[in-house]
């Protein structure tokens, strides 16, 4: 399995992640954009396979896994796709509907976060009592201001606390977007 640990032990010398470092916003895409939601991006991408610049993409210019496109779009039977044929293919596919399905995980909020830590007793019960206080749900996204984090800092060891902060931060991000815990985008298999 290459360099992954056998037996689940972390190799020595690995430093714990730095706490309380706010995550920077994801950077915007940079450089030439090969993938995008616009049909034109896909038209341009297919056109980029025109190696001999004859304004047509022939079978040999495509990877073998894509050569089925010729049969699908070659209306004038010249064994290649010109740009009008490419545009027609892409536009036909783009008109099909997409269904975006997000499913949330209903795992007990902060109580679940504590359970996931697998703390020994009685530390586990003490931690559960802390997160079940009415004010515990506030400011969980800001460890520097939350009384809950201060209480947890005094209860948990370094590794436990680090893992609590990471899990609570993920939870707060989920909460901010309305309880959505990630998801997958699916589409109808129609047209394949």
């Amino acid at each position: 399995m290459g360099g992954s640990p056998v037996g689940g032990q972390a190799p020595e010398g690995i430093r714990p992640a730095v706490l309380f470092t706010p995550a920077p916003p994801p950077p915007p895409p940079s450089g030439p954009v090969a993938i995008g939601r616009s049909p034109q991006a896909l038209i341009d991408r297919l056109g980029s396979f025109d190696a001999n610049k004859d304004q047509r993409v022939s079978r040999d210019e495509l990877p073998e896994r894509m050569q089925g496109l010729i049969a699908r779009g070659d209306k004038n039977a010249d064994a290649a796709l010109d740009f009008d044929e490419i545009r027609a293919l892409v536009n036909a596919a783009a008109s099909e509907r997409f269904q975006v399905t997000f499913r949330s995980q209903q795992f007990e909020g902060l109580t679940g976060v504590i359970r996931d830590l697998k703390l020994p007793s009685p530390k586990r019960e003490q931690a559960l009592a802390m997160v079940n206080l009415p004010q515990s749900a506030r400011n969980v996204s800001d460890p520097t201001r939350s009384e809950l984090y201060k209480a947890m800092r005094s209860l948990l060891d370094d590794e436990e606390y680090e893992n609590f902060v990471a899990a609570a931060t993920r939870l707060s991000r989920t909460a901010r977007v309305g309880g959505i815990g990630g998801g997958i985008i699916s589409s109808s298999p129609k047209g394949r």
Partner: protein
Amino acid sequence: MTRIFGPLLVLVFVLNVVALSSRPAAKSKLKLPATPYRYTNVELPAHFKQTAAKHDNTPLDNPLTDDGATLGRVLFYDTRLSANNTTSCGSCHVQAHAFADTKPSSKGLHGGLTDRRAMPLVNLRYYQRARFFWDERAGNLEEMVLLPIQNRIEMGQDLKRLVDTLGRDATYPALFGRAFGDRQITEQRIGKALAQFVRSIVSYQSRYDEGRARVQSAQDDFDNFTLQENRGKALFMRNCSTCHMKDGNEQFFVPTAANTGLRDNDPKADGGVGDVTLKPMELGSFKSPSLRNVEVTAPYGHDGRFATLDALIDHYSDNAILDPNLGYMVPVGPLKFTTSEKWALIAFLNTLTDPTLLSDRRFSNPFVK
């Protein structure tokens, strides 16, 4: 007595006959048991069966049989399925690695390299969507198994020529007869037999399965797990199961292709599913293999860019490229696992390894030197 054992002796002789000449495997013998191995009616654990029937993609016209899977096994490991008799399906789909290749690109019949890595073939029977390859271009297993045989880089074989070759062989007509009721060899039957063998490759005997059989819910702690493995399982359930265990599916497939932020800035970079469907939103989406046996299927990703599970989890944790088509972590963002969490996750993923499957002789190469 002779009437009973005579045909049987002939059959045993036929099944043990030396393979025909003119191929690298010419010095190999095909060794099959007189009674076919049992591929059907395998007793699956209860938690497995809960969703197995729902997700089974076996078509009505190609039910799994012991004789069909046996024929598929022989075909799977026969190098004559390639044009120059050098490459079999098993050359790249290695049993000890859950029928995946250990290299980012697989070497084809003339030494050329594929542009994607060979996927694991485990539990494909239970991929409900029944679309195969990284770009999901094959609509069923019967179609899937024939495409690498014809691919110019992979095996470069002409199916009509293959039918002729197998028809002249001393062994195959009998094997086809047992599998399909008569000795006729066709392209379609080759596809069906190979698909049966692939569908028979089912992993259900991992430490995860042992522990899961003793609890009510996958979210309960398993008594055969270490603390770290149970922590990793809890992390997985909370952060990964939305996609990898959708609706409690313990095959650990993502039920549809997904964009996981692997975008390459090269305009000619692999577009995955989008290259097939021509739907802009599906550019950069790829099918995900089952996580069962993921410990032994490195390198990871369609192009094998992640050498280890460590590197793979780092991608989801920190390094995913923001992609307009990003699907899996919308809208939560990078998962930001701590080091301790990462090792717990890996410890859990290692519990999905099924050593029985990886050495099961029913799935091994029947050509022996």
